[in-house]
């Protein structure tokens, strides 16, 4: 093996030396391919592992934490919720439609591999400055791809995020999350049980798709090598995935298979190695048996990332019955190997053994790095001159910024009502679906505040989690657990490594305080093009439940004359990063003040109050306050000609960010009771005003209701065209 080949496979020479010393022989090219895939950041988390271990991953509701295809939490009565988020950043930059589509396909397989039926998806997508044609092309392709795949399979999209910032000009982010429902006594794991069990291949035929995709995902790619190093792109076939999903769920409920693993990144290699490692067994696979779409070398079969494929382990006796079931769904099915007791991964082709490696070295001896990191510098405290801002100007700044506008251009391309159980569609603070045939509602939200995290990764991460928390609370969903997708630039840069370390630490902190463990996740590093790193973007997906869907709160105004209450504590003009950035007071990251300490106690106390009041049916509707402050929160609450009239002391404050911020709409007849609850809990609040028909009034200044609605609902369309 020459150095060049080794490096091309994304391994360092040191890493290679470790392998060779262990094996005491040279490697076959296929074996090198396996290490390339398995020792890649994407599969073995060599940079982040040390830090990820610090995350809280269990409590009494966690059935399955990180380590399986998806995490699972217990929502009582034998109902479990499986969920996970995953990134498809680089593939979506290269080929936005297919890259995003296969991202959705992959995360759905993670869910149904565990025996869970997917019941919802969310997507968190970020793009560069919209003024470039490239961004427009990426936005269109990505949204089309996500919609195409999810719509076709028929899983409702219930929410997500869509943000624009020049930091993503050359590295857009596409994170897809899926949620599934499983009966807790019927969960499937990837761990095989029987020595001599047959390894079977289920799904699409294998082709040249995405070979080297996994190593590519961790390479810093430079702008101009787009054409040369471009690996062949993965194309998704959602129709096939629908058949595969139905077929697999039928197989699992028939009790004919003992374990299952999807072929994700690094295809058959990683799925079979993981199987062997989980079961502490060996695998022997005959590559000649793998169903192929076109002639492929053993090397290519091992590394192909063709989509819509599964690996399962079955008892010999069930072979024919399984074949029969899958025939109905017209899915390829082949016995390709068996489980051995050798603790080795063996692949053969043409009567020759091409790979023969101990599982240990691939998995347990995978490199783990403790990379150097630096801490952010102390910030000076300053006051900013906001005297030039008036209310019209502030409204206009937000209403001409894509990040504040209604995103229906995006989510109207998604089917959000299929399956008939959607309670809250995208466009509200959290998406909510009912578990079919039960009274339970499951809610979820994805969030990230990259600017906060840039200023202070640890506190910023806490703010991010608290935003998701508020999104769920505003719907009266009890937050239960978290999945996370750590999108960062190159960890070889100590500053960026510092962002990784500190934001994981912040995540760990807040997850403990809220008792919302991290049950699954994904790491995407090297989101960087030349010397342009992305802002730290650790996206979290938070999931929760309310056992009675009738108690779910809407975010929209329900009727006129309801009283509007403001809860929470303003961060104030000098300490609201998005306010300062988007009102164009600050343009450089170094000018921001240190973030104020998040008031976690207030968050928890306020959340308790809202839950209690909602359970007593004392709240008509509620919305959280985030980017854009009270002002944007109120706009999102308007519907069907219902507007508002409010009075505030400080007009700038309504555009600022908040700790524990919520707007509640309360029926006048419940005012007394709500107030007394608030006094009792010692929660500060303010009566802001009332819900009013066709009115948009701030401190007696009237704005035209339909003009405001037009701006909020239509400007996104205008700005991207």
């Amino acid at each position, binding site marked *: 093996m020459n150095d060049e080949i080794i490096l091309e496979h994304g391994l360092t020479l040191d890493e290679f030396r470790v392998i060779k010393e262990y094996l005491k022989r040279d490697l076959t090219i296929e074996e090198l391919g396996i290490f390339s895939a398995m020792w890649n950041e994407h599969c073995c988390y060599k940079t982040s592992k040390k830090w990820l271990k610090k995350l809280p991953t269990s409590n009494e509701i966690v059935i399955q934490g990180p380590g399986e295809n998806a995490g699972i939490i217990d929502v009582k009565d034998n109902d479990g919720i499986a969920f996970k988020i995953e990134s498809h950043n680089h593939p979506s930059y*290269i*080929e936005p439609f*297919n890259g995003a589509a296969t991202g959705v396909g992959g995360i759905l397989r993670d869910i149904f591999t565990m025996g869970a039926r997917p019941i919802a998806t969310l997507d968190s997508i970020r793009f560069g400055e919209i003024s470039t044609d490239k961004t427009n092309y990426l936005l269109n392709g990505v949204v089309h791809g996500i919609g195409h795949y999810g719509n076709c399979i028929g899983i409702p999209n219930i929410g997500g995020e869509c943000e624009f910032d020049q930091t993503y000009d050359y590295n857009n982010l596409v994170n897809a999350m899926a949620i599934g429902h499983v009966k807790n006594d019927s969960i499937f794991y990837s761990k095989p049980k029987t020595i001599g069990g047959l390894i079977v291949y289920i799904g*699409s035929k294998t*082709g*040249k*798709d995405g070979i080297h995709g996994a190593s590519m995902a961790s390479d810093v790619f430079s702008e101009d090598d787009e054409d040369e190093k*471009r690996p*062949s*792109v993965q*194309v998704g*076939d959602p*129709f*096939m995935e629908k058949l595969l999903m139905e077929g697999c769920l039928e197989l699992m409920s028939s009790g004919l298979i003992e374990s299952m693993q999807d072929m994700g990144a690094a295809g058959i290699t990683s799925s079979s190695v993981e199987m062997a490692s989980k079961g502490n067994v060996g695998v022997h696979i005959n590559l000649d048996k793998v169903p192929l*779409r*076109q002639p492929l070398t053993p090397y290519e079969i091992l590394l192909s990332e*063709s*989509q819509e494929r599964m690996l399962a382990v079955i008892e010999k006796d069930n072979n024919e019955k399984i074949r029969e079931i899958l025939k109905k769904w*017209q899915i390829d099915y082949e016995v390709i190997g068996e489980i051995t007791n050798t603790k080795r991964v063996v692949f053969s082709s043409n009567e020759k053994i091409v790979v023969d490696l101990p599982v240990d070295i691939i998995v347990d001896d995978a490199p783990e790095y403790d990379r150097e990191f630096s801490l952010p510098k102390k910030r000076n405290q300053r006051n900013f001159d906001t005297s030039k801002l008036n209310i019209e100007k502030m409204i206009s700044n937000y209403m001409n910024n894509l990040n504040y506008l209604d995103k229906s251009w995006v989510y109207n391309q998604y089917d959000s009502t299929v399956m008939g159980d959607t309670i809250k569609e995208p466009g509200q603070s959290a998406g909510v679906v009912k578990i079919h045939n039960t009274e339970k509602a499951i809610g979820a939200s994805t969030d990230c505040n990259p600017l906060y995290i840039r200023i202070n990764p640890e506190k910023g991460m806490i703010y991010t989690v608290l935003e998701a928390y508020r999104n769920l609370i505003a719907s009266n969903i009890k937050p239960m657990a978290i999945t996370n997708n750590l999108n960062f630039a190159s960890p070889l840069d100590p500053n960026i490594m510092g962002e990784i370390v500190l934001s994981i630490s912040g995540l760990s902190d807040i997850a403990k305080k809220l008792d919302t463990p991290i049950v699954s996740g994904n790491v995407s590093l090297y989101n960087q093009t030349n010397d342009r790193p992305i802002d730290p973007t650790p996206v979290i997906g938070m999931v929760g439940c309310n056992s009675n869907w009738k108690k779910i709160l809407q975010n929209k105004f329900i009727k006129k004359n309801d009283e509007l209450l403001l809860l929470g504590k303003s961060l104030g003009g000098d300490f609201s990063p998005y306010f300062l950035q988007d009102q164009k007071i600050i343009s450089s990251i170094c000018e921001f003040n240190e973030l104020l300490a998040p008031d976690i106690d207030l968050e928890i106390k306020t959340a308790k109050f809202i839950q209690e009041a909602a359970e007593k049916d004392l709240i008509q509707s509620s919305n959280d306050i985030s980017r854009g402050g009270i002002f944007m929160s109120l706009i999102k609450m308007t519907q069907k000609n219902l507007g508002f009239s409010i009075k505030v002391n400080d007009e700038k404050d309504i555009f600022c960010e908040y700790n524990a911020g919520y707007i509640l709409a309360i029926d006048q007849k419940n005012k007394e009771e709500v107030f007394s609850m608030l006094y009792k809990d010692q929660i500060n609040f303010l009566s802001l005003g009332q819900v009013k028909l066709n009115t948009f009034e701030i401190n007696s200044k009237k704005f035209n209701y339909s003009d405001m609605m037009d701006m909020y609902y239509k400007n996104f369309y205008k700005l991207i065209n």
Partner: protein
Amino acid sequence: MRIKILIRLKSQILEPQGKVIEQSLKSLGFEEFSNIRQGKLIEIDLPDSLNEKERSEKIDVACKRLLVNEIIEEYEVLG
């Protein structure tokens, strides 16, 4: 004059439609039809004033810039 651009996925790229159409045709009794792939047809009017060379250059540029995604597609110009 009206020209036709035929756009197809490169042969190594998965084309899910063709296979399903093929199966459907087979079940209708069209056994001899095989290796079916679906692609795109784009038809465009170009002024006759352009000479052959200008025309083919313009089309090539348009294909590369917008009409064809060369990462996964290839094209052929007719007419």
